[in-house]
């Protein structure tokens, strides 16, 4: 099983490059602007795009992404609109891998078979379901294989060695190391601690490892990229949308701010 995600990491490996993964919520602040934001990510040559589909009760997310989900729901975002967003994006972009991230209930209510079928149709390469630990992933294992969608798992500072093996069994694509004990966009990761954990995981798994949660600036990324395969930036991007929503600046200014922010991270 191989898709855009594997190709991307292979390509990066060849040039000794690191992945910059950008997270945005689908349909935040609305579908039209959401499409434009994805284009900004594409123009900035983001290596992998993670799209959150909103849930009313995002248990693992901090205030920034909670508000983002609420804005999106209010603007009518759902799984179908997320598929539409990706489909639209794929019209001009074949290579950038797309990972959907969210909670299990909206997927389950959509219908698992339909969900995975459409994922493969519109060009979604991976899935992170925050509240579906390996103990419960029997719901989706057949589908991820059949439809060639990677089941990407979160590893955390609390994941001990025996558990790591269990998690790795059904994981593919890449590993997402959660750098802090906590929720998205709040605490700052300790680089030394993350390094220790990432090195431990390396001994057991050959999968690429990206680090996320609490990553907001270039310094952090440079330090983390010394031992990881890439970094995920989420709340820092989403907070530009929040500021726009509060009326701090215009739509164009918001798009420019996101663009500049990412350009600086990529430098």
């Amino acid at each position, binding site marked *: 099983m191989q898709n855009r995600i594997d190709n991307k990491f292979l390509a990066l490996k060849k040039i000794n490059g690191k992945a910059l993964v950008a997270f945005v919520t689908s349909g935040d602040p609305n579908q039209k602007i959401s499409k434009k934001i994805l284009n900004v990510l594409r123009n900035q040559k983001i290596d992998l795009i993670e799209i959150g589909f909103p849930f009313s009760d995002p248990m693992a997310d901090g205030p920034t992404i909670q508000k983002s989900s609420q804005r999106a729901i209010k603007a009518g975002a759902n799984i179908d609109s997320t598929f539409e967003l990706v489909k639209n994006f794929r019209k001009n972009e074949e290579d950038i891998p797309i990972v959907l991230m969210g909670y299990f209930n909206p997927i389950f209510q959509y219908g698992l078979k339909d969900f995975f079928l459409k994922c493969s149709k519109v060009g979604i390469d991976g899935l992170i379901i925050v509240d579906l630990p390996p103990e419960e992933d029997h719901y989706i294992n057949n589908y991820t294989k059949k439809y060639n969608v990677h089941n990407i798992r*979160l590893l955390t500072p609390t994941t001990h060695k025996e558990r790591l093996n269990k998690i790795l069994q059904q994981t593919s694509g890449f590993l997402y190391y959660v750098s802090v004990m906590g929720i998205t966009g709040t605490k700052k990761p300790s680089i030394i601690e993350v390094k220790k954990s990432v090195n431990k995981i390396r001994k057991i798994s050959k999968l690429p490892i990206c680090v996320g949660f609490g990553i907001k600036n270039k310094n952090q990324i440079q330090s983390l990229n010394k031992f990881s395969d890439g970094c995920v930036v989420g709340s820092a991007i989403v907070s530009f949308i929040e500021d726009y929503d509060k009326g701090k600046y215009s739509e164009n200014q918001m798009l420019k701010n996101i663009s500049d922010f990412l350009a600086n991270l990529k430098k």
Partner: protein
Amino acid sequence: MKKKDKINYYKFPDKHGRFGKFGGRFVAETLMPLLLDVEKKYKEVKKSKEFKSELNYYFENYIGRPSPLYHAKRISKEIGDVKVYFKRDELNHTGAHKINNCVGQILLAKKMGKKRIVAETGAGQHGLATATVCALFNLKCVVYMGALDIERQAPNVFKMKLLGAEIIPVKSGTSTLKDAMNEALRDWVSNVKDTFYVIGTVAGPHPYPMMVRDFQSIIGIEAKKQILKIEKKLPDLLLACIGGGSNALGLFYPFLNNKNVEIIGIEAGGKGINSNMHAASLSRGKPGFLHGNYTYLLQNEEGQINDAHSISAGLDYPGIGPEHSWLKETGRVNYFSATDKEALNAFKICSKLEGIIPALEPSHALAYLLKNAQKFKKNQIIIMNMCGRGDKDIFSISDSLGVKI
């Protein structure tokens, strides 16, 4: 024999934390190792005689157990020729059944070496009970409470602060119980090392639904002994109100295998279950995933969780414990609902006829009895869980009755 009569209800949850297809463990990875640890420690202490005797000590001397089983004669007469018994958990220390579970879980937390307790609360009864037991055992206590509920339940907020708890107003989402639970979970994820999350109802990820049920089942264990002593036989009917469902399961559980005992749970019908303003997850919801388990939920077609509504803040929750979902599907328990109005009426009747001011929560169960008086057979023995007293509700009730106090 019907299928529901063949089930041994004491074999559940299974090793995956499932009651039939309900329950399970749907949480972020950060919490998984901790949940597995809680389960392991709980299984150990459950077998330990020392833990049992410690628990019993606090049940007797701190909570004031056993709570009486009281024949409510005037209410019985109001209904007809039936015998209604109140299981008087409203007489417990802190005024409700919630403290049974708090003592149990906090003793477990102490055994696990945890120094900090977090809890969610709606009406404030669970928060109050948690704050109380934390004061007793000198543990730091943080209570998450919806900003709306803080306004509705000022007396409990004041009490919790007196007891030394920190109250954190929750303004995310809809600012009610479900959001308080989200915030408590987020706190727990962020502080897993020193913190224990005391969930107040039979919901949440495994092992919580089982653990809370076990600690609350003291209610049913006592009731069974008491009724056998008084009536020399088992009751015909058990009745309790349901939000998350902990008081109900506490009463029901020890009777589940006594197949001749009929069991009924009453959900909060709010402004009517055909309106959009109720908390009847079993009657009007469908199964889904929230707060770590698979259970009936109030949700829209896209799987977004809907707001619940009830005059009683303690029932104002869009989900329900997974074991109730299963008991509904097996048919062992029947679930109905009572509206805000009916509960208020029952509240008034009970106060006047029995000299017991009930909480709004059990007023829902009582409302069902009053409403269905004609259905009951002569001399039928009914046990209703009087799971809380009404002191906390007098402000919101006087408000809705248009009385200033």
